[in-house]
C-alpha cells in the first residue's frame, strides 16, 4: 500500500512543481494539479479499500525514522482514510468544477488549492499538536487566498475578516500548545492523552485554549459572522471545500483533541455543538441569500456533529458510524449544493426556480436536501436513528428534544427553499451550461446514494436500499424516460404483485390496510392513465409513498416502521408538491409530518431503552412511568397524519391543491397510515394514564372535535376539493373516536371507516377532480347543472354522498350502526355528543357538494362540457361497484377482522348468522334493507313514470320566477355562501384559532431569527470581539460548571 505520507507529499510536490512552470502553460498546470489531486484521492481510496475490507489495520507513519514523541507521526486508520478521501475528492471535484476560473487565475491559484487540500488532509492525518497547528495555519492562509478567487467584490473584505479571525484562533491555539507542552513535555496527541491529567491541571487552561481554538475553527454559532461572510461571497466551489473539506478536517481535529481532554470536556463540546445546531438553524430561517443559508446550514451541521462527538462516550463502537454518517452526508450534500448554486445566476432562494425543466438537477437538489435532513435511505437517517436511541437509552431527553427541534427547523427552511425552486415562476436567467460542472454535481449525487447504500449495509437495522418496495420505487427513477402508459402499467402491476406475494403473511388487520393501500392504490392509479407525456417525477414519488405504506404494514421492528413512515412522508410530499398552487401547503404538510415523525422517533427511542433493534411488540413491555409518555408521543405523531384537530391545518390545502389523481391517494390512502399507526399503538399499549388522566379519553375528545370541526368547516367551503379535504378531517375524527373507545365495536367501526372512507373519498375526489378538469375551476358556485353533461360523475358523487352521509341502505350506515352499538358500552358520553352534532352537519356539505356542482343552473361556458375522461370515470365506476358490494355484504371484509379484534377485546363481537348481523343490543340486515328499500323505490318510481309519461321536458329557465324570468344562470344559481343562516348561528365555531396559533409560532421563530441575526454586522472588528467574547463566555461557563 502506498504510504499515506504520499498524500501530503504529492500535494506539496505538485504545488512546488507548479511554481516551476511557465505562466502561459495553463493547461499543463491544470493537468498537473488534477493529476496530483487524483493521485491523492487514489491513495486515500486505496486505504479505504484496504482498511474497510478488513485486510489491514490502522498504520502509524513515522517521519524522520523515529518513533513519537521524538518525531512527528501520522496515522492512517479507517476514519482518517475516509475523511482524506472525502477531502481529496472534494478538492479534485472542485478543481474540475473550477476549470474555467483556474484557467484564468493560473498556476498560483492551483497551487493554493493543492496546498489547501494537502493541509486539510494533514489535519486529519497528523498526531502531533504542533504539526496540527502548522496545517491549520496552512489551511487558513490557503483559505484566504482561495476566497479571493470569487468574482464577488465582497470576497476581498470577507477574506480579510477571515484572516483576522484565523489569526486570533491560531494565537489561541499556539498559546494553548505551548502551555500544554510545558505541562506534559510532549507534543504528541496520544502521548499527551496518556498524561492528560497533567494538561488538565489547574483548570485546564492549556487544554481549554487548544480546544476553544479548534472549536472556533469550526465556526461555532454565534461567533461566526466572519465565516458566514466567506460562505456567502466566496466562489461556490470554494465554499464547498470550506464547508465539506475544512469543516470535516477541523471536526476530526476536535475529535483528536478531545482524546486529551477526556470525558470531562465532552459535555462542553455537546453544549457548544447543540447551541450551534439549533441557533444556526433558527437564524437560517430568515435567510434570503442561498449561499448564506447554506453557510448557516453548514454551521448547524458541524454543530450537530460536534454535539455527537461530545456524546462519544455513550455511543461506543457505533460512534464512528453515527458521527461519520452525519459528517459525510453533510459533506456530500453541502458540497453538492454549493456546486449547484454555481450554476444559478441569482442569489435569492427563488432564483433556484431556474432549475425547473432540468429534472436531473432537481433530482440532485432533492437528493442533497434529503441527505442534509437525514431522510431515508441516506446515512444521516441511520445515524440519527441510532443516535436518538442511544441518547434515550441514557436518558438524555433534553438533548434529543433539541436535536429534533433543530432538525425540524432545518427541514423547514430547506423544504421551503425546495418548494420555491420548484413552484415559483421560473427565473429568467437560464441555468449555466457546463458539462464539467454538471458532471461534478452528479458525482456528488452518486456519492450520496452510494453512501446511503454503504451506511445501510453498516447499519444494524438492515439496508433500506435493498428493500424490494423501495428498490422498486427508486427503479422508476431510471424508467423516467418512458411514457406514462408504460410506467403506470408497471406501477399497477408492481402494487398488485406485491400484494399478492405478501398475501399469505398478512393477518386480517394488515390485510384490510394492505388491500386499501395497495389494491386501492392500484385502482386509483388507473386514473393516471389519462395523463399524457412522461410525467417526470410522479412515479418515483408515488411509488416511494406506496413502498413506504407497503413496508409500514408489515413492519415488525420500530426502525422498519419509522423508515417506512418517513419514506411515505417524503413520497407524499413530492406528490403533493406537484399540484399547481400547492407550494405552501406541501411545506406545511412536510413540516407537520416531520414533526410527527420526530415525535414518533422520540417515542420509539424512549420505549427502546437503547436498543436500536427494538421491535414493535416490545411496546407491550414498556413499563409504567415511561409508558404513557411513549404512548403520548406516538399518538401525537400518528395524529399528524390523520390530521386530528389542532394538527390539521396542512390537510385542506394539501389535499385540495394536489393533482386530480393525487388527491385520492393522499386522502383515501395516506391518511390511513396514521390510523394504522394508532391501531398498532393501541394494540400494543392499550390505554395509558398520565397524571390520572386516561389518555384515550383525551383522544376521544380530539376525535370528536375533529369530526365536528372538520364537518363544520367543510360546510362553509366554496372550493369543492377543500370541502372534501375538510370532510376527511371529520371522517378521520370518527375513526379516531372509534379507536379511542377501546372496545371491540369501536375498533370495528374505525376499520369500517378505513374501508368506507377510502372508497367514497377516492371516488369523490376523482369525480370532483374530473369536473374541475373539465370546468377549469374548483369553485362550486361557478359550476352547476352538470348532471346531464357529466352523468357518470354525478352518479359517482350521488352514491358517494349517500354512503358518506350514513343514510341506509348504503355502506355508510354500517359505520353508524356499529358506532351506536359501540358507544352503548362506553362511559365517555360527553365527547359522543359532539359526534352526534357532527353527524347531521355532514348532510350540509354533502348536499352542497352535489347540488352546487351538478344540480341547479348550467352556466353559459359549460354548455359544451364533456363527461370526464374515461380513465377518470373507470375507477369511479369500480368504486361504485365496491361500495354497493360492501353495502350488501360487509361481512366479506369485516367478519375476519371482527374475529381478529376479539384477541384484544373479547367482549362485544358481532354475530354474523345468515343475512343478519347482530350485536349485544341490536341487529342489522344489510341485504334485507337494500331489498326493502329497492322494492319500494322501484315500484314508486315505476308508478310515477307511468302516470307522468307525457311530461314535457323543459329547460333550465322554465322555472316559476314570480311572474318574471331568470336573468342569467349565474344570478339564478344559488350556491355562494350556501349556508348563510348556519354561519350566522354557528359560524363562531369556525374561527381559524388553530391556524392562528401555528402562524403565531412560525412568526415568533422568524421574528426572533430576524432580530438576532443583526448580531452579524459585517464589521471585522465586531467579529473579532465576538470571537473573544465567545471564548470568555465559554470559559466562564466551563469554570462555573
Amino acid at each position, binding site marked *: 500500500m502506498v504510504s499515506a505520507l504520499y498524500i501530503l507529499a504529492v500535494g506539496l510536490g505538485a504545488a512546488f512543481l507548479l511554481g516551476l512552470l511557465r505562466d502561459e502553460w495553463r493547461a499543463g498546470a491544470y493537468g498537473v494539479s488534477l493529476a496530483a489531486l487524483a493521485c491523492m484521492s487514489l491513495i486515500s481510496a486505496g486505504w479505504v479499500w484496504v482498511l474497510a475490507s478488513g485486510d489491514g489495520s490502522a498504520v502509524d507513519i513515522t517521519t524522520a525514522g523515529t518513533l513519537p514523541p521524538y518525531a512527528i507521526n501520522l496515522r492512517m486508520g479507517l476514519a482518517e482514510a475516509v475523511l482524506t478521501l472525502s477531502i481529496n475528492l472534494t478538492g479534485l471535484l472542485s478543481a474540475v468544477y473550477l476549470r474555467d476560473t483556474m484557467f484564468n487565475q493560473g498556476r498560483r491559484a492551483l497551487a493554493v488549492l493543492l496546498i489547501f487540500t494537502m493541509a486539510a488532509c494533514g489535519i486529519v492525518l497528523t498526531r502531533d499538536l504542533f504539526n496540527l497547528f502548522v496545517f491549520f495555519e496552512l489551511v487558513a492562509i490557503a483559505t484566504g487566498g482561495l476566497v479571493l478567487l470569487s468574482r464577488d467584490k465582497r470576497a476581498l473584505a470577507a477574506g480579510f475578516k477571515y484572516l483576522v479571525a484565523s489569526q486570533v484562533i491560531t494565537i489561541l491555539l499556539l498559546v494553548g500548545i505551548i502551555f500544554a507542552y510545558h505541562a506534559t513535555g510532549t507534543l504528541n496527541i496520544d502521548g499527551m492523552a496518556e498524561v492528560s491529567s497533567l494538561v488538565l491541571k489547574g483548570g485546564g487552561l492549556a487544554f481549554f485554549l487548544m480546544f476553544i481554538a479548534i472549536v472556533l475553527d469550526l465556526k461555532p454559532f454565534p461567533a461566526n459572522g466572519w465565516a458566514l461572510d466567506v460562505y456567502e461571497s466566496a466562489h461556490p466551489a470554494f465554499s464547498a471545500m470550506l464547508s465539506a473539506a475544512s469543516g470535516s478536517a477541523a471536526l476530526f481535529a476536535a475529535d483528536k483533541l478531545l482524546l486529551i481532554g477526556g470525558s470531562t470536556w465532552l459535555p462542553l463540546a455537546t453544549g457548544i455543538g447543540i447551541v450551534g445546531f439549533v441557533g444556526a438553524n433558527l437564524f437560517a430561517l430568515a435567510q434570503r441569500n442561498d449561499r448564506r443559508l447554506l453557510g448557516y446550514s453548514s454551521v448547524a451541521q458541524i454543530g450537530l456533529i460536534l454535539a455527537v462527538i461530545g456524546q462519544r462516550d455513550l455511543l461506543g463502537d457505533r460512534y464512528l458510524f453515527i458521527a461519520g454518517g452525519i459528517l459525510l452526508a453533510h459533506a456530500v450534500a453541502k458540497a453538492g449544493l454549493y456546486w449547484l448554486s454555481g450554476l444559478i445566476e441569482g442569489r435569492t432562494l427563488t432564483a433556484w426556480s431556474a432549475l425547473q425543466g432540468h429534472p436531473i438537477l432537481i433530482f440532485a437538489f432533492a437528493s442533497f436536501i434529503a441527505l442534509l435532513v437525514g431522510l431515508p435511505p441516506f446515512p444521516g437517517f441511520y445515524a440519527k436513528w441510532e443516535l436518538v436511541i442511544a441518547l434515550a437509552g441514557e436518558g438524555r431527553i433534553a438533548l434529543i428534544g433539541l436535536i429534533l427541534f433543530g432538525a425540524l427547523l432545518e427541514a423547514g427552511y430547506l423544504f421551503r427553499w425546495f418548494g420555491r425552486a420548484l413552484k415559483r415562476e421560473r427565473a429568467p436567467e437560464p441555468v449555466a451550461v457546463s458539462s464539467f460542472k454538471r458532471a461534478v454535481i452528479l458525482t456528488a449525487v452518486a456519492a450520496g446514494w452510494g453512501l446511503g447504500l454503504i451506511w445501510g449495509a453498516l447499519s444494524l437495522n438492515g439496508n433500506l436500499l435493498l428493500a424490494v418496495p423501495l428498490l422498486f420505487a427508486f427503479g422508476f427513477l431510471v424508467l423516467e424516460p418512458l411514457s406514462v402508459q408504460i410506467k403506470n402499467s408497471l406501477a399497477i402491476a408492481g402494487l398488485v404483485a406485491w400484494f399478492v406475494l405478501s398475501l399469505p403473511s398478512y393477518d386480517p388487520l394488515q390485510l384490510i390496510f394492505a388491500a386499501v393501500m395497495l389494491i386501492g392504490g392500484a385502482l386509483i392509479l388507473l386514473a393516471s392513465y389519462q395523463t399524457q407525456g412522461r410525467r417526470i417525477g410522479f412515479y418515483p414519488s408515488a411509488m416511494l409513498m406506496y413502498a413506504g405504506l407497503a413496508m409500514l404494514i408489515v413492519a415488525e421492528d420500530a426502525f422498519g416502521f419509522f423508515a417506512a413512515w418517513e419514506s411515505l412522508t417524503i413520497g407524499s410530499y413530492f406528490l403533493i408538491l406537484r399540484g399547481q398552487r400547492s407550494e405552501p401547503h406541501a411545506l406545511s404538510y412536510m413540516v407537520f409530518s416531520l414533526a410527527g415523525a420526530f415525535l414518533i422517533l422520540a417515542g420509539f427511542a424512549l420505549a427502546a431503552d437503547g436498543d436500536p433493534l427494538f421491535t414493535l411488540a416490545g411496546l407491550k413491555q414498556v413499563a409504567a412511568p415511561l409508558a404513557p409518555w411513549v404512548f403520548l408521543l406516538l399518538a401525537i405523531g400518528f395524529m399528524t397524519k390523520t390530521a386530528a384537530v389542532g394538527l390539521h391545518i396542512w390537510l385542506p390545502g394539501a389535499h385540495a391543491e394536489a393533482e386530480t389523481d393525487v388527491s385520492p391517494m393522499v386522502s383515501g390512502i395516506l391518511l390511513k397510515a396514521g390510523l394504522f399507526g394508532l391501531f398498532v399503538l393501541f394494540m400494543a399499549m392499550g390505554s395509558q394514564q398520565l397524571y390520572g388522566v386516561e389518555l384515550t379519553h383525551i383522544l376521544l375528545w380530539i376525535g370528536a372535535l375533529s369530526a365536528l370541526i372538520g364537518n363544520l368547516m367543510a360546510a362553509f367551503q366554496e372550493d369543492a376539493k377543500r370541502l372534501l379535504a375538510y370532510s376527511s378531517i371529520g371522517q378521520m375524527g370518527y375513526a379516531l373516536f372509534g379507536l379511542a373507545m377501546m372496545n371491540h365495536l369501536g375498533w370495528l367501526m374505525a376499520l369500517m371507516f378505513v374501508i368506507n372512507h377510502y372508497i367514497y373519498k377516492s371516488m369523490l375526489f376523482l369525480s370532483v377532480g374530473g369536473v374541475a378538469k373539465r370546468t377549469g375551476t374548483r369553485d362550486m358556485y361557478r359550476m352547476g*347543472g352538470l*348532471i346531464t353533461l357529466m352523468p357518470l360523475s354525478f352518479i359517482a358523487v*350521488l352514491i358517494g354522498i*349517500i354512503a358518506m352521509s*350514513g*343514510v*341506509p341502505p348504503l355502506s355508510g350506515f354500517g359505520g*353508524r350502526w356499529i358506532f*351506536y*352499538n359501540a*358507544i*352503548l358500552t362506553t362511559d365517555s*358520553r*360527553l365527547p*359522543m*355528543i359532539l359526534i*352526534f*352534532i357532527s353527524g*347531521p*352537519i355532514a*348532510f*350540509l356539505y354533502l*348536499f*352542497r357538494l*352535489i*347540488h352546487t356542482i351538478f*344540480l*341547479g343552473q348550467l352556466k353559459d361556458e359549460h354548455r359544451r362540457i364533456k363527461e370526464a375522461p374515461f380513465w377518470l370515470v373507470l375507477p369511479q365506476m369500480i368504486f361504485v361497484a365496491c361500495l354497493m358490494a360492501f353495502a350488501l355484504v360487509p361481512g366479506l371484509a369485516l367478519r375476519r377482522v371482527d374475529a381478529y379484534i376479539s384477541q384484544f377485546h373479547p367482549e362485544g363481537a358481532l354475530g354474523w348468522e*345468515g343475512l*343478519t348481523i347482530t350485536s349485544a*343490543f*341490536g*341487529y*342489522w*340486515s344489510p341485504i*334485507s*334493507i337494500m331489498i*326493502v*328499500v329497492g322494492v319500494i323505490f322501484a315500484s*314508486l*318510481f315505476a308508478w*310515477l313514470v307511468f*302516470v*307522468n309519461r*307525457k*311530461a*314535457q*321536458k*323543459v329547460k333550465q329557465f*322554465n322555472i*316559476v320566477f314570480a311572474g318574471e324570468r331568470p336573468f342569467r344562470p349565474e344570478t*339564478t*344559481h*344559488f*350556491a355562494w355562501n350556501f*349556508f348563510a*343562516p*348556519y354561519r*350566522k*348561528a354557528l359560524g363562531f365555531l369556525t374561527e381559524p384559532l388553530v391556524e392562528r396559533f401555528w402562524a403565531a409560532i412560525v412568526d415568533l421563530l422568524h421574528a426572533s431569527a430576524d432580530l438576532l441575526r443583526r448580531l452579524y454586522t459585517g464589521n471585522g472588528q465586531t467579529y473579532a470581539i465576538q470571537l473573544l467574547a465567545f471564548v470568555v463566555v465559554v470559559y466562564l461557563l466551563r469554570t462555573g460548571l
Partner: protein
Amino acid sequence: MSFEWIKIPYALLTLFIVANYGFLLTAVMAKIAARVGRRHGIPVWQNYLDLIKNYGLRSSITHGVMFYMGPVFRLTGGVGLLMFVPTLYGTEMFSNMSFAGDLILALYFVFFGSLGMALGAGESGHPYSAIGVTRGLSQVTAAELPFALAVYAVAVQYQTLSVTEIVAAQQGGILQWTLFTNPIAVAAAMLSFLGTMMRPPFDVVLAPQEIPIGPPTEYHSSYLALMQTNRAIFPIAKIVIYMNLFFGGAASWPAFFLKVFLIYLVSVIVGVVFPRFRVEQSIRWFLIWAVPLGVIAIMIA
C-alpha cells in the same frame, strides 16, 4: 325474526291503514288548527280530493331524472320508515319489515327522504328550492340532536336497540312508560319532535311568504301527489317511533290511533300558538333549550 312472503300483504295492509289514517289525521289536525282561529277548516276528506285532483292534472313538466327521483325518494323514505318499525306491539301481522334493522336503522332512515327530495328539488334549478333545502338542513342539524341523545338515553336504559324489546320493557301499566321512567329524555325528544314536524315555529323551511314553499316550489301534479302521500305517512311513521320509544307503544289499532293522535296534537297545539323562528333563531333555541335536556338525559342514563 326473518322474512316470510306473507309479510308482504301484511305490510301493504299496514301501509293502507296508516296512509288513510294519515290523510284523515292531517285533515283533522288542520281542522283543529282552524278551530283555534275560529274557522271551520277544511273538510276531513279534503286530502283525498286534493290527491285525486293532483293525479287528475293533465299536463306536467319535468326538469330531468332527479326531478322524478325526488318525490320517489321522499315517499320511499316515508314508507320505508314505516316498514322498518313494528307498527303494533305483539302482532306478527303488523311488525312489518322490522327484521331488517333496529332503532338505528329507523333513526338514520328518517333522512333518506329529505335528502332525496333535496336532490330532486335541486335539479329543478330553482333558487328557492335550494334556499329551502339549506334552511331545512341547517335546522335539522340542531333539531335532530336532542332526539338522538334521547334515543341513546333510552337505549342505555333498556340495554337494547330493538324497538320491540323497548316496547316490551314498557308494558305493564302506564307508569312503565319511558315518559315516566325517563322524563328528561322524553322532554328532550319531544322538543326535537316539534322541530321536525315542519310546523310553526319551526317551519321556515317551507316559509310560504318569503320563498314560495321552499324545496317543492317546482313540484306539481303527480309529483306533488306522491309528496302529499308522504306527508300523510311520514309524520305517522315518525310518531310511531316516538310512541314506541316513549309512550309504551300500541298493542291494538285503537290504542295506536289514539296515541298517534295525541302525539301529533302536541306539535299542532304548539304550532298554532307560536309564530315562526328564523333558521339561526331556531338553531339557537334548540342548542339552548333542548340539547342541554338531552345532555342531562344521557348523563344520568
